[in-house]
């Protein structure tokens, strides 16, 4: 097994740790901050894996999409805006 750069390895370990915390947490709303940590770590991994200018767009699209998903889940759980 050859080891990756320490920055990339840290991103991967943090993503796995946060995913385990998401699965172990019981309360649905308290899962969402851990999911946010997962999306931060994955966005960082995307850029560290492929340092290309277009990767900024890809990482931003993934991050904003994941944020939008969390936002929709949280507002639906809270009762949701009336027009949905």
């Amino acid at each position, binding site marked *: 097994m050859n080891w990756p750069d320490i920055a990339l390895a*840290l991103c991967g370990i943090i993503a796995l740790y946060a995913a385990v915390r998401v699965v172990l947490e019981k309360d649905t709303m*308290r899962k969402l901050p*851990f999911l*946010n940590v997962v999306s931060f770590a994955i966005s960082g991994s995307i850029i560290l894996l492929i340092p290309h200018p277009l990767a*900024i767009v890809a990482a931003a699209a993934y991050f*904003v999409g994941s944020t939008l998903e*969390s936002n929709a*889940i*949280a*507002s639906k759980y809270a009762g949701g805006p009336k027009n949905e």
Partner: protein
Amino acid sequence: MPADPLHILIAAMVSWVNFVTIDVFFKLPERGGVSGATEIGRHIEEGGGALHGGYMMGNIVSSPDASAGTLLASCGVYAAGIPGGLFAALLVYVGNRICYDPGYAGTTGCITATFIVYGFTLIGFSAAEFIVGMVIAILTIQGISHVHSSRLLSTLWRWRQG
């Protein structure tokens, strides 16, 4: 270029100070921006945390704020230098508009982080260290213990109110 663990630690502290200062300055802990953020703050308070810190954590979850700005600015500087960082600021602004947020905190955090990260690259740091530093910084807020981090953020919010 292999990353230095000491540099990663310093980068994490710089990113932490940058995004917490800008978030508290733009009054994110005051109230939940959307109904989902309010709900997350209420659940964190039920779990033993503090309410205003919970609101700020809910706001970080439900729209890209200064923490996302710092991460994407480091990504932009890593891939394309200063223009990449400013392009990332534009993307953060678009993302904020999608999530029904005014977008001042995210854009400001992204622009300041661009120049901070570029300044640190001049003295021997790598932008990759700032990317992983920001991941560690968000881990300390959102991923270790919600009770303690929300109490810490509430203390900072009381200082901001004076």
